C-alpha cells in the first residue's frame, strides 16, 4: 500500500459499500448507497424514520441478504449471507434493543462467551472454570473490572448500561473490522453514555471502524469524524469535521431546494381574524420524568404544528392529551374545565381525538373494510338497541371516501388493499364523523404520498376553520409549515420556539432545532 497524504483516509476502507440498494415489493428503500468507512474512524449515520437506516444496518448485519451492489471488507468483496457470516467477516452490530443480545437465565460469564458457545466450536462440555476464564479475558478487552462474583451472577441482575457493556465486550472480543452501534445511548443516562464514549475512543485507537447511528446531534458532534445522512434511501450528505449542522438537518428533514420548488407550492396558511379562544391549556406538564415542565395553550380555530426530532416528546404529548399514557406531571384544562383523561375513551367523549403515529399498530383493524374501520370509534351512533345499522355505516364510509378523496374500489374494500396515504385518510376520516373539539395528528404524513398529504392537510385546516383546535406533530419541518398557523419547536420535552406566520419562517425553525440539540 502506498503511503497516503497526511489527513486523507487510508486507501483501503475497513468496510466499503458500492451501489448498495434494496427494495421491498417494488418500493425502493435503499438507492445505490456508496460509503467507505476507514479503519479507526467513527462515521455517524443520520436519518429520519423510514429513511433506510435500519435497512442498511440489516444488510450490514447479514439479515437482509437480497440486496444489490457490493460490500467489501478490507477491499475484498464479500457476501453477508447470514448474521453469522457477517460476524465472521468482522462486522458486529449492537442493536438498539439491548435485550435482543442477552440470553436471560444464563450467568454474566456465559453471556460473555455466548457467541463462542453458539458457534459450537471447541469442547462441547462446558466447565464453569473455562467459561469464567474466557469471560475474564473478554471483559478485560473492554477494560471492565467485573469481579468473579459479578461474572457468576445471573445476567438479569445487571442494569441496562452494564448489559450494553456486556454486549459491546462480546462484540469486541471477536476483533471486528466494523462495529455498528444503533442508537446506543437511547437507554443510557448521561454518565453511562460518557462511559460508552470513552470506550468508543479506545476502539478508534485500536483501528476499529464504527458506524454510529443516532439522532442525538450532541453525541455525534463529540464523537464522529464524519457524518452521513440518509433520506428516502439516498445518501444525501457526507461531511467531514467541522460539521455544518444546518446543512445536515436540511438534508435529513427533506429541505432540499428541489423539493421547495416542486412540492411546496402552496402559500403558507394565514389564519384570518383574531386568535381563537384557548381550547386546551397545559400547565406544568412534564413529558419526561425529570425534565423541565412545559406550558402550552392550544387555540381553537387554528392549526398548531409541533416540530421536533425523534425523542423530543411529540408522541408523549399526543398520547398524554389523548389519555393513552398519562403525563409524568402537570395539569390540563379543556375549555376552562379540568381535563385529565384516564383512558382514550374519556378523551374521545370530551371531543379530543388522536390519529396515532403508527397507523398499522395503533389505528387500523386488519382485514376489516374501509367502512368498518371508519365507524369503529363511534359504533353507538350506527346502532339501535345494539343492532348495527349497516346501511348507515356504509353511507358514512362513502361520505368519508368522497370528502377525503380516498382512492378505493368502494367502502367494502379491506384496508390492506389501500395505499399508505389512503389508509391514513381512513384513519383521519374516522374522527370526522363527530366534529372534534381537538384533533391531534401524530406524524400524519409518514409514508403518505404528496396528494394524500395535501388532502389531509386541507381537511385539517377546514376543521380548524370550523372551530376545532388542530395539533399536528411531525419531525418534518416542511410538512408542518405547509399546514400550521403556528409552529412550536419541541426538544427534550421543552418548548424552544412558539411563533406565528412570518416569525415561524423555515430558517428560524431549523436554527432553533439545531441550537436546541
Amino acid at each position: 500500500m502506498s503511503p497516503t497524504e497526511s489527513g486523507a483516509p487510508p486507501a483501503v476502507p475497513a468496510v466499503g459499500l458500492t451501489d448498495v440498494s434494496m427494495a421491498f415489493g417494488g418500493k425502493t428503500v435503499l438507492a445505490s448507497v456508496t460509503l467507505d468507512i476507514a479503519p479507526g474512524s467513527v462515521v455517524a449515520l443520520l436519518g429520519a424514520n423510514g429513511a433506510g437506516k435500519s435497512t442498511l444496518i440489516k444488510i450490514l448485519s447479514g439479515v437482509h441478504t437480497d440486496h444489490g451492489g457490493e460490500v467489501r471488507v478490507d477491499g475484498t468483496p464479500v457476501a453477508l449471507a447470514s448474521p453469522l457470516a457477517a460476524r465472521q467477516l468482522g462486522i458486529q452490530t449492537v442493536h438498539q434493543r439491548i435485550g435482543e443480545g442477552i440470553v436471560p437465565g444464563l450467568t454474566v460469564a456465559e453471556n460473555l462467551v455466548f457467541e463462542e458457545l453458539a458457534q459450537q466450536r471447541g469442547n462441547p462440555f462446558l466447565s464453569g472454570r473455562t467459561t469464567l476464564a474466557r469471560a475474564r479475558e473478554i471483559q478485560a478487552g473492554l477494560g471492565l473490572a467485573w469481579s468473579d462474583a459479578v461474572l457468576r451472577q445471573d445476567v438479569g441482575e445487571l442494569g441496562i448500561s452494564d448489559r450494553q457493556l456486556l454486549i459491546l465486550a462480546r462484540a469486541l472480543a471477536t476483533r471486528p473490522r466494523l462495529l455498528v452501534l444503533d442508537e446506543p445511548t437511547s437507554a443510557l443516562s448521561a454518565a453511562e453514555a460518557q462511559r460508552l464514549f470513552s470506550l468508543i475512543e479506545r476502539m478508534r485507537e485500536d483501528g476499529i471502524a464504527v458506524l454510529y447511528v443516532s439522532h442525538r446531534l450532541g453525541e455525534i458532534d463529540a464523537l464522529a469524524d464524519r457524518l452521513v445522512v440518509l433520506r428516502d434511501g439516498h445518501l444525501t450528505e457526507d461531511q467531514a469535521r467541522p460539521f455544518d449542522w444546518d446543512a445536515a438537518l436540511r438534508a435529513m428533514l427533506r429541505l432540499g431546494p428541489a423539493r421547495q420548488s416542486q412540492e411546496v407550492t402552496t402559500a403558507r396558511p394565514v389564519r384570518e381574524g383574531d386568535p381563537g379562544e384557548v381550547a386546551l391549556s397545559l400547565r406544568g406538564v412534564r413529558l419526561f420524568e425529570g425534565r423541565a415542565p412545559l406550558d402550552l395553550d392550544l387555540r381553537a380555530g387554528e392549526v398548531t404544528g409541533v416540530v421536533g426530532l425523534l425523542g423530543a416528546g411529540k408522541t408523549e404529548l399526543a398520547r398524554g392529551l389523548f389519555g393513552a399514557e398519562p403525563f409524568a406531571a402537570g395539569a390540563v384544562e379543556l375549555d376552562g374545565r379540568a381535563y385529565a383523561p384516564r383512558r382514550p375513551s374519556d378523551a374521545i367523549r370530551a371531543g379530543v381525538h388522536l390519529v396515532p403515529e403508527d397507523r398499522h399498530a395503533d389505528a387500523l383493524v386488519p382485514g376489516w373494510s374501509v367502512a368498518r374501520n371508519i365507524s369503529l370509534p363511534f359504533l353507538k351512533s350506527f346502532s339501535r338497541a345494539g343492532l348495527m345499522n349497516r346501511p348507515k355505516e356504509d353511507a358514512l364510509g362513502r361520505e368519508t371516501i368522497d370528502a377525503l378523496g380516498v382512492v378505493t374500489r368502494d367502502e367494502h374494500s379491506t384496508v390492506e388493499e389501500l395505499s399508505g396515504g389512503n389508509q391514513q385518510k381512513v384513519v383521519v376520516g374516522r374522527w370526522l364523523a363527530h366534529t372534534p373539539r381537538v384533533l391531534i395528528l401524530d406524524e400524519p404524513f409518514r409514508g403518505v404520498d404528496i396528494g394524500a398529504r395535501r388532502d389531509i392537510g386541507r381537511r385539517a385546516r377546514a376543521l380548524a376553520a370550523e372551530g376545532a383546535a388542530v395539533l399536528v406533530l411531525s419531525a418534518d419541518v416542511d410538512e408542518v409549515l405547509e399546514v400550521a398557523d403556528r409552529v412550536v419547536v419541541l426538544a427534550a420535552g421543552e418548548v424552544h420556539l412558539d411563533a406565528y406566520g412570518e416569525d415561524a419562517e423555515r430558517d428560524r425553525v431549523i436554527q432553533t432545532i439545531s441550537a436546541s440539540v
Partner: protein
Amino acid sequence: MTTTQSTEVPTKAAIGPATSTAVRVQNAVIKYGFIFVTVALFLYFALSEGSFRESATLLDTLRYVSVAAILGLGVTLTMAVGGMDMSVGAVAGLGVSVAAQTMVVHNQVGTVAILAVLVAGAVAGLLNALLIVVLKIPDMLATLGTMFVIQGSKLILVDGQSITPGMTMSDGSTAPGKFTDGFLKIDRGTVLGVPVSVLIFGGLTIAAWVFLARTRWGRVLYAIGANPEASRLAGIRVGAYRALAYVISGVLASVGGLILASRIGQGDVSAGTSQLLEAVAVALVGTSVLGRGRPNVWGTALGAVLIGIITTGLTIKGLPYYTQDVVEGAVLILALVFSFTLSKRRTA
C-alpha cells in the same frame, strides 16, 4: 363426488386460464371444503345406512352434540377477543354438580337449580376475567388453571362423590330431594317432536350469531381480537369487553351443564371433562368454515353438526366407541390445516 366439486369453479373469462383455474379450485376448496365434507359424509351415511336416515337418529345426533356446541359458542366468543377458554368443560361439570346439589341435597325445585347453575357459570367466567384482564395472565394458562380449580372445588362441594337421588349423605340421613320432572325435560322433553336441548342449541346459536355478527358489542369483540391497541385508541374499554366475553362463555358453559345434568339425571363428578376438547375442536373447526380463518358462530354450529354426523355415522357403521377420539382429533387437525396452512398459502 369430484364432479360436484368442479361445478363450483367458474369456467369463463380467465386471463391466465391454467393458473387461475387452479387458484380458483384452491379458493373454493378452502371456502367450501368443510361444508362439502359435511354434506358428503351426510349423504354417504344416509345412503349406506337406512337407520341414519330416520329423523329420530338425526335429532338424536343434534341432541348429542348440543352440549359441545353450546360450550363451543362460548369458546368462539373468547376466541373472537383473541383469547381462549379452556375451562368450559369444567364449568359444565360444575353445573351438573350444582344442579344435583340444589335439587337432591337441598330439595329445591328445578327453577332454583337452573338459577344456581347459571350463577355458578357467571362466577366462573368472572374468575377467568379477573385472572386474564386484571392479573394479566395469558388466557390459555389462566383458564387451564381455573379448569383445575373448578374441577377441584366441585369435588369438595359434593364430598368427592356423585350425587344420586335417595343416596345416604355424610350425616347418615337420606338425601331428601330428586331431579324434578321439569328439570329432566331439558334434555329428554320434546316440543313438536324436537328435543328441548336441540331447541336450546338452535336458539343460542341464533342469539350468539346476532350478538357477534349484528350488534356493536360483537363488532367490538372482533376489533379487540384483531388489534387490541387500535381498539383501545378508538375508545374501546378493552378490558371490560374481554371480561364480558369470558362471563358469557361461563354462562353458556353452565347452560351446557344444565343439559348434561338433565341427560345424566344425577350429579356425576366426572361430567363435563370430555366436553372440553369437543367444544374447543368445534370452535376451531368453525374458524375454517367458509375459509374466513376467524371464529364465527355458524362455523361453530356447523362444526358441531359435522362432528355429530361423524360420530353417529361411525357408530351405526359399527366402529367401536373408543375410536371416536381418534376420529374427532383427525377432523380437528384437518380443520386446522384448512384454516392455517391452506388459507395462509392463499394470501401469500
